[in-house]
């Protein structure tokens, strides 16, 4: 099956890459663009570890075909990290011990950014509702929710 | 004389005793004198030169990684238990 050329913007920079027609955005990001901060947990949209922003909208990159992002903007955890220092969410995740194994952390931080971009001062209930598509098996979510609330404060 | 607690499934072979006082400076030596009193018990506790796989020995409240070579005192209390390695059961 022949490859497709995709022109997109990834983390603010033009990204031209080849993909197989059936390939997901998740695999293009990880294996072709070498952006491995986006994690694969289930590949069917049920864990949120592969969360990215597509034209600013939070999506699971395992449920997006790479070919679909032609002409579109993709933001990953790598693009969310400032040139200097850390994003406030990243800082609060560290200070609140909101990660243990850390595999779900990039997805949670990307999702939390999408939340705060839309709702800068969410309640605990709003945080829990927005992040319900992101699974964490280590923390029981307590410290994650606190970290997001702290970043919003 | 160390006190050895006899595992329930071994009591039949050990004259129905629940515990027994035995001579020996190591767990291995205790088992030897146990065998001398009740032939056949050794084969139930030991495989070759080591404790039976899955079987642990506790001396005075502490699991003994040395198994048969673990030291015992005159006052020691010895138990044969199901070996459990915390998060790593055998």
């Amino acid at each position, binding site marked *: 099956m022949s490859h497709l050329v995709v022109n997109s913007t990834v983390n603010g920079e033009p990204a031209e890459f080849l993909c197989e*027609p059936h390939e*997901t955005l998740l695999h293009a990001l990880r294996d072709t663009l070498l952006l491995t901060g986006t994690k694969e947990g289930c590949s*069917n*949209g049920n864990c949120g570890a592969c969360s990215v922003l597509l034209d600013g*909208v939070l999506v*699971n990159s395992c*449920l*997006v075909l790479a070919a679909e992002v032609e002409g579109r903007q993709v933001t990953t955890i790598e693009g969310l990290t400032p040139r200097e220092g850390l994003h406030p969410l990243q800082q609060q995740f560290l200070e609140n011990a909101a990660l243990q194994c850390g595999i779900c952390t990039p997805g949670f931080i990307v999702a939390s950014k999408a939340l705060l971009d839309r709702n800068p001062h969410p309640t605990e209930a709003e945080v829990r509702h927005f992040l*319900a*598509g992101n699974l964490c098996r280590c923390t029981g979510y307590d410290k994650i929710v606190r970290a997001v609330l702290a970043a919003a404060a | 004389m160390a006190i050895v607690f006899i595992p329930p499934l071994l009591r039949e072979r050990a004259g129905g005793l629940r515990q027994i006082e035995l001579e020996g400076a190591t767990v291995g030596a205790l088992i030897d004198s146990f065998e001398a009193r009740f032939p056949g018990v050794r084969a139930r506790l030991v495989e070759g030169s080591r404790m039976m796989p899955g079987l642990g020995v506790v001396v005075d409240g502490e699991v003994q990684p040395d198994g048969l070579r673990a030291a015992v005192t005159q006052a020691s209390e010895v138990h044969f238990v199901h070996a459990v390695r915390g998060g790593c059961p055998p």
Partner: protein
Amino acid sequence: MQTFNFLSVATVEDAVAALKMGANRPLAGGTDLIPMLREGRRSADAVVDIKRIPKLNQLVVGPGHDLMIGAAVSAQRICRDPEIARAFPGLIDGISLIGGTQIQGRASVGGNLCTASPAGDAIPALIVHDAVLMVEGPSGGSEFPVSAFLIGPGKNALGPGELLVSIYVPAPKPGFGAAYLRFIPRNEMDIAVASVGIGLCQDEGGRITGLKLALGAVGPTPIVVAEAAGIAEGQLPSAELLARLGAAAEAAARPIDDVRGTAVQRRRLVNVLTRRAFEKALSRSVRMSSFKLF
């Protein structure tokens, strides 16, 4: 993941042409199709990305509060529209439950319909709103009521080359109120074990002048409880009316045991959900009529 080709089209005509060929499938949000293709539960020679067709991205609330939803519009876009939320709260009940935040950003009402899952969250609410599905095909346009569009579990009425273009929802009549409730074991990220959509009208005196009751996940396709209208017609809301509607729902359900729940459980659930959804719809109907006053 099986291999397939990828096509992107910009017009309904191109989509119809592409979908006429072989085993090609339309791709909107992809939240159902992509995992189905990966896990071999569907196959395709090519997927046809229809999200770049302007007509499928329209979302228009008409002057008289009727609503046109382009088939590829994401659930999130619909749910974040304050005018739609105010005029169609019962519809939002269902659409807002299609998956978690990440799924909401991609999944479309059109896809929810075309996947034709018996548990599709948007479907019972669309039924009780008397939604009409606008389809374009090689032989021109056609219209389907939702119930006629769903012909079996995972099966819709579209023929080769036919494309669901938009969903038309007529303006609610005065005194109309609707609600959708589902039961899931967790509080998010689950498929409905059973669900209920209810739409009702009451006159100023509070008597029920019309009622439509649709059940999800308790049959091969969503079930419209025919008896419900007759039971409610001309009645004032009462515990007895709720009990009769619940019993009618339970009697109409044709559930099975599966990995998500048991038949017994599902019968009980549609009964409970019917009673709870009725009260929710009723409260909205009151709000709607008073809203009409000014």
